[in-house]
């Protein structure tokens, strides 16, 4: 379903285990990771994940809180947003 897609954006200093830690949160909530991209920007690690929460075992807010908790442990900044905001804003 279109509105079940979310984009997770993670910023911070690069370190070992970021992808694994976030992926484990996704697994816990049965969230399907459909796409991952990563880059560095001004010495910061930036990772983007597109996920589908349509078959997840929890609601959006619980999943978001779980990701935020994990990101805090990793000392990373994270944004969890429904994909629609990007689709609407950047296409005519």
């Amino acid at each position: 379903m279109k509105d079940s897609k979310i984009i997770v954006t993670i910023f911070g200093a690069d370190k070992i285990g970021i992808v694994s830690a976030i992926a484990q949160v996704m697994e816990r909530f049965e969230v399907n990771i459909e796409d991952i991209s990563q880059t560095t920007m001004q010495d910061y690690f930036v990772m983007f994940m597109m996920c589908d929460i349509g078959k997840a075992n929890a609601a959006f807010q619980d999943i978001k809180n779980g990701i935020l908790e994990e990101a805090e442990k990793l000392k990373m900044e994270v944004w969890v947003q429904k994909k629609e905001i990007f689709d609407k804003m950047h296409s005519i």
Partner: protein
Amino acid sequence: MFNFKVDDILQTINMIKMHHLDIRTVTLSLSLRDCISTDINETAEKVYNKITKYAKNLSSYAQQVEDEYSIPIVNKRIAVTPISIIGESAKNPDYVLLAKTLDKAAHEVKVDFIGGFGALVEKGCTKGDDLLIEAIPEALAQTERVCSSVNVGSTKAGINMKAVLRMGQTVKRAAELTATQDGIGAAKLVVFCNVPSDNPFMAGAFHGYGEPECALNIGVSGPGVVRAALCQLPKDADFGVVANKIKSIAYKITSTGELVGRDLAKRLDIPFGVIDLSLAPTPAQGDSVANILEAMGLERTGAHGTTAALALLNDAVKKGGTMATSYVGGLSGAFIPVSEDAGMIEAVEKGALHLDKLEAMTCVCSVGIDMVAIPGDTPAHTISGIIADEMAIGMINKKTTAVRVIPVPNKGVGDYAVYGGLLGEAPIMPVNQFDNSVFINRSGRIPAPIHSLNN
């Protein structure tokens, strides 16, 4: 292959995080016409029950939407039918009681402001209109979240100068009754010409007569985003390039507002109303309409060229915004409130911006003389003169204009009125000292203008 563009994601996050992109207000517009009764206590009870029933989920659902898109929804508000009508049939009218009822309901459903304590009197006052205007100062002093607006002129009807006279006195009294808070009562009171019936922004929001039972109207914002985009242009970029850049940003801002508005309206199970295509500044650094004008190449807002820059900005915002949504309404344009815009405050402090220039700017943008603090000893007829001038601009140019000035009690030029929050703080600006009382006291109406021979 990636199914998303990372640059788009980064731009969106940057707009929200660095440049204050937000949904400025989600306003539940609600008819109270079925609350009318011959007993004012019964009316008040019906009003309270209806508002708390319809708006009970507004704040919590708005919070959910905010979380899901990670875009701040700054204000949750309610606009109701002009209260002059709602209290008019009571044998024991008490408009202050209705204001207190609105305030109590606003607290109960956790909205920041509730608008509609007002009347439309461009041709004249009914008994209810008279009583409501009489009650405005007391109502604003005894409530926290109630906003009041009175429409005193229109292009079709002309300007009701008797009402202009009274509103000058009402603004003054509203400030005096809230003297310990720098006259904040007057900051919640606005006088209009050609008032729109679906405006989501305060203090002028109300639910117009032609509106449905209820609707959700959205006010978007984002002056900081526009300013940042213009700062990236080369200094010799021509005006076509400048206008196009503003249009593309306005499109992005508005389409986000449309998404959020439709989602929230669906959750509340009420119709989506309109998007108000406005650039509304906040006191936060960089979130300033004045700074946009300065990014176009003016040393300070107020320099000669300011009105032209604002005209370009206002028009480009509308052009970009209308591409993003089918239903546009409200005030739709750039706001130039002095106290709520750090760039405007600086321009006043530096002596670049005066009341006369602000008045000229209102000819080409959406609102009017907005959140301007003036000396507390300004006579009521001078305030009426400021109102009359602004109404004339609206009437002749077939546009909305408004006046929200605060004659700050016991303070003069050089002092500051301090409100905090979105209302900000304002340096007190001088007004013209010459007398206008004979003109203002003439009463009657300034006739509606002719619609040909346009010059």
